[in-house]
């Protein structure tokens, strides 16, 4: 039983085939990267896996469970969480509040409990705040906890998005362009976070354009072009693959 398996995933948007028979297996506890030129369909694959877009064909299996076409919130409950390329932070909430929203199974999110269980709620919220705070601390954002998300620097916002996904305690994290637009230092921080996740037994799939970063942190690389997988393997091998080089440079 593979930890995470994509089989023949296909997506048509009207006349356009964005993803074409994409198959791939992801090993537990490793970092797998999905790379490819712009428009290759990487983010679409993420959307298909995480339940935001329905596939035209194909299957997605996570821990031996068919999650194809499942609603995003149910997929998160099963242990798979994602970030967005455009972050989608809750800008008018603080960093801490953003992370707290990632916490799962909060009793205070049930209506009756929210209205009537005031005393119990206070203790629960204190616990939630502590857990969220710990995650922020781990990512070096504890100083920004009370800041509105929209006031954070870009690099901090990217980390916050990852923090929020980490709060779901998902075992498998899909990170969409975690390093994009970051300076050297910020990028190192992000890569460090990813390594830290793996050290703790989590699995990461990431999409990014930063070749150096991707090759540095990945255990396995999958290359996509025009919706189709054209190469797959260890970073060194993929970097030297003829087809990959052609696709990236020959345009």
């Amino acid at each position, binding site marked *: 039983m593979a930890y995470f398996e994509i089989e023949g995933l296909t997506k048509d948007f009207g006349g356009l085939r964005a993803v074409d028979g994409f198959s791939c297996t992801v090993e537990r506890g490793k970092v797998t990267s999905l790379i490819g030129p712009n428009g290759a369909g990487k983010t679409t694959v993420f959307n298909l896996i995480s339940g935001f877009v329905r596939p035209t064909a194909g299957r997605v299996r996570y821990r031996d469970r068919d999650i194809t076409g499942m609603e995003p919130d149910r997929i998160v409950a099963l242990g798979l*969480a994602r970030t967005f390329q455009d972050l989608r932070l809750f800008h*008018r909430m603080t960093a801490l509040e953003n992370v707290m929203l990632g916490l799962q199974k909060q009793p205070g999110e049930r209506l009756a409990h929210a209205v009537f269980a005031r005393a119990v709620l206070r203790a629960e919220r204190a616990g939630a705040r502590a857990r969220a705070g710990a995650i922020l601390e781990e990512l070096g954002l504890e100083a920004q906890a009370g800041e509105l998300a929209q006031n954070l620097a870009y690099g901090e916002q990217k980390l916050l998005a990852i923090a*929020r996904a980490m709060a779901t305690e998902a075992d498998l994290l899909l990170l969409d362009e975690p390093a994009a637009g970051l300076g050297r230092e910020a990028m190192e921080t992000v890569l460090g976070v990813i390594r830290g996740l793996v050290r703790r037994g989590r699995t990461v799939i990431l999409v990014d354009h930063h070749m150096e970063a991707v090759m540095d942190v990945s255990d396995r690389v999958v290359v996509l072009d025009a919706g189709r997988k054209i190469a797959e393997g260890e970073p060194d091998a993929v970097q030297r693959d003829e087809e990959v080089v052609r696709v990236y440079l020959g345009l």
Partner: protein
Amino acid sequence: MDYVLFVLILASLYAILAVSLNLLVGLTGLVSIAHAGFMAIGAYATALLTMKAGANFFVAAAVGMGIAACVAAVLAVPTLKVTGDHYIIASFGFQVIIISVLLNWPALTNGPFGISGIPRPSLLGFTFAGYRSLLALAVVLAGLAGWVAWRIAVSPFGAVLRAIREDEAAARSLGKDVTRFKVQVFVVGCALAALGGAFYAGVTSFIDPPSFDIHESIFILALVIIGGKGNILGSILGAFVLILLPETLKFLAVPSSIADPLRRILYGVLLMVFMRFLPAGLLRERPAR
């Protein structure tokens, strides 16, 4: 003096309507102009049950709230996929359909003639006959509605509503069952509107379909916006300001035929002025703790 009491009662009534609509519009971003329709459900249920079945006011009101909750639950489902402008039109639709039913089912509702002679609320032998006791009841009910709305607003449930308002996809990506949250808040909001309607029936003794038409819905929306979206106290403030302010017109010896339109012009102008200069409303939204 009676007149002042009546105005205060009215303000408390609209406070109930405003805080409940704020849950939908302010917290969750569901701009509904159907609130008066749900108010009507509560009013008619109360009137009919107290008059035809001899039920106690509070029991009838509870049943009215239950009916409104069921209707809301049924109506919520199809509109969940709908956003923004489409949602407003859909809510307009509920409003029109509810009023159509009230107008066109004379056997049940007496159609356009309305129902008169609705008894005042009573409890364990005591009847809330005078304005003083009605005001006390009004304040209690408004306090109750305000408290429920406030608890929701400051709770984690409320935080999820705000997240949904800002970015539904992001909320989904954090495992929130957006559908459940929207349906639940819609049901609570509409049930509270029905409570307001029930009380309205008990106070005014006469109800007819035009009392609950689209203009009422827009008025309640204006209360929420001017009072401050997402701020429960703001809704209460908005209700009192917008009910009391036009009453001062009465002292300007304005003929009664133009009093109503003038009052409406006032809140139409206030809407425009606030959107231009103070879009957050009188009391801004404060984050949950």
